[in-house]
């Protein structure tokens, strides 16, 4: 679905944001793109959407170089930006204007999602709050039926019930041939909805793994007291004990804590990466 080869990009020649970045995203996955502030998450999404051009390297989306902006490919991509002002008009007119660009747009689904998000379909965009506008934009994006949905900080501005609703709606709306890339710094908002996790740091992809593999390779658990295991890759104090990330044992799987995962890989990058390499070597050996 997305293949990035040897990508380099920087807003100025002196400071490169990405250097020789490689990344791959398979079809039918919901992928979380995580990174620190300023790590280049939004820039990477814009490079994938084809609205920024790499300094060198290639970005292929649906087997096409995305910077060519082929309309046949663009109609299979929808990019929900973090900051986007809906034009001042009724929601119905907005849909009538933009839906014809996406040949699989589902009007019934759009209205259904609006009601799930509790947004009045007859309202004008000027009457909506920031969060409601965001919901309209997300509902529209999910109704387009595009093969690649790019969501940049989609939960920003959503209230707590809407965040839960968003997770539910996204997971239930995405078809098998669709892929979603979500960037967020509010990692808890993405809990239990991702198939793949990509973490970028210092212009490189430091983790690009399937959730199943992560939960097998790493163990996330809470322990009472102060006895943090020696092999802990990351630990943090929580009331009554510690949250620790340790290497996984056998085929046992644990519930991933995205925040702890992010901190573990950024503080103990080499060790964590080695664990994933070992897993792949073992799998290859079995084959």
């Amino acid at each position, binding site marked *: 679905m997305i293949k990035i080869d040897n990508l380099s990009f920087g*807003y100025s020649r002196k400071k490169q944001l990405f250097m020789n970045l490689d990344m791959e995203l398979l079809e039918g996955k919901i992928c979380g793109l995580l990174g620190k502030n300023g790590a280049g998450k939004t820039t990477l999404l*814009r490079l994938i*959407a*084809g*609205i*920024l*051009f790499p300094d060198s390297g290639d970005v292929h989306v649906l087997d096409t170089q995305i910077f*060519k*902006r*082929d*309309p*046949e490919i*663009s*109609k299979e*991509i*929808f*990019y929900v*930006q973090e*900051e*986007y*002002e809906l*034009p001042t*008009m009724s929601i119905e*007119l907005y849909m*009538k*204007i*933009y839906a*014809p*660009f*996406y040949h699989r747009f589902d009007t019934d689904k759009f209205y259904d999602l609006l009601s799930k998000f509790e947004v009045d379909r007859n309202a004008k965009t000027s009457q909506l709050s920031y969060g409601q506008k965001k919901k309209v934009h997300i509902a529209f994006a999910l109704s387009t039926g595009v093969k690649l949905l790019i969501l940049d900080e989609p939960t920003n501005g959503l209230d707590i019930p809407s965040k839960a609703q968003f997770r539910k709606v996204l997971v239930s709306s995405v078809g098998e041939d669709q892929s979603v890339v979500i960037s967020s710094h509010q990692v808890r908002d993405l809990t239990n909805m991702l198939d793949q996790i990509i973490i970028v740091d210092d212009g490189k992809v430091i983790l690009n793994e399937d959730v199943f593999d992560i939960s097998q390779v790493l163990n996330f658990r809470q322990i009472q007291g102060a006895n943090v295991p020696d092999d802990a890759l990351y630990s943090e104090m929580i009331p009554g004990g510690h949250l620790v990330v340790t290497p996984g044992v056998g085929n046992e799987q644990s519930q991933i804590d995205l925040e702890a995962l992010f901190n573990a890989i950024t503080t103990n990058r080499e060790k964590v990466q080695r664990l994933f390499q070992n897993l792949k070597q073992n799998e290859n050996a079995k084959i």
Partner: protein
Amino acid sequence: MLKFNIERIRALLVRDFHMSFKPTMKIIGVILLVYYLVNLFIAVVNRNDTVDDFELSPTIITYGLFLLIGGLIYSSRAFREFAKVPSRAEYLSLPASSLEKVLVKWLYTGPIFLVAFTLLFWILASLFMPFISDLRGYEFSSPLFVTIPFWNLVGIYSVVQTIFIFGSITFNKVPAVLTVISIMLIALIALLICAIFFRMVWAEYFEGLYNFAEQSGNFRYGDGTSDPSEKWQVKFFIFAFKFLLAPVMFVASIFKLSEKIESLD
């Protein structure tokens, strides 16, 4: 970049009609209405202060001013999506080729605008001008559609408008001002180049860098040269302005839009 699909053109036409053309025509309509109401008021107040017939109809002068100022501002804002980063990103990711996007913007700021604006102006002028001219004591005649100055204005607008569309893609902020400044800079550079060539070709007639040398005998500047308008260079320049500039700017706009990125500024 050059893909063409009638469904996408239709979708872009609908989008731009609601997002840009309709609001612009509303604003221009209101401004014209206010202009004629003010003129009517002035004519009523000064009804005894009559004026002689004009050499050029006031209607065509007003039409020309509104067309060139209003139309060129509208053309310079054709790609107004580029003024803000999010709307720029949204427009660039819209599934349509550069050719389709430029074509639709050109249609709305060119032919469609000309027809809509002229009709609107003609209706308002026909409503107000007979009263105003009667009060001010001059004869009213509608010069739209039937006079040479009208078609000259339409021709000039059709060419210059494409420069402003190109400016609209090139400059994200205040495109009208920056386009005018760019045109002036290009004109200045062209003038300097002409001056340098002139100085080089006619070097023998100069004394120092830019002072003309005194000539003896019956010498007069311009003697023995033909009328400039007869020269093929001047003829080509006029031909290029009339028939080549607009298509060249149209093609340049397509290339410029294809290179446009969602930069941070």
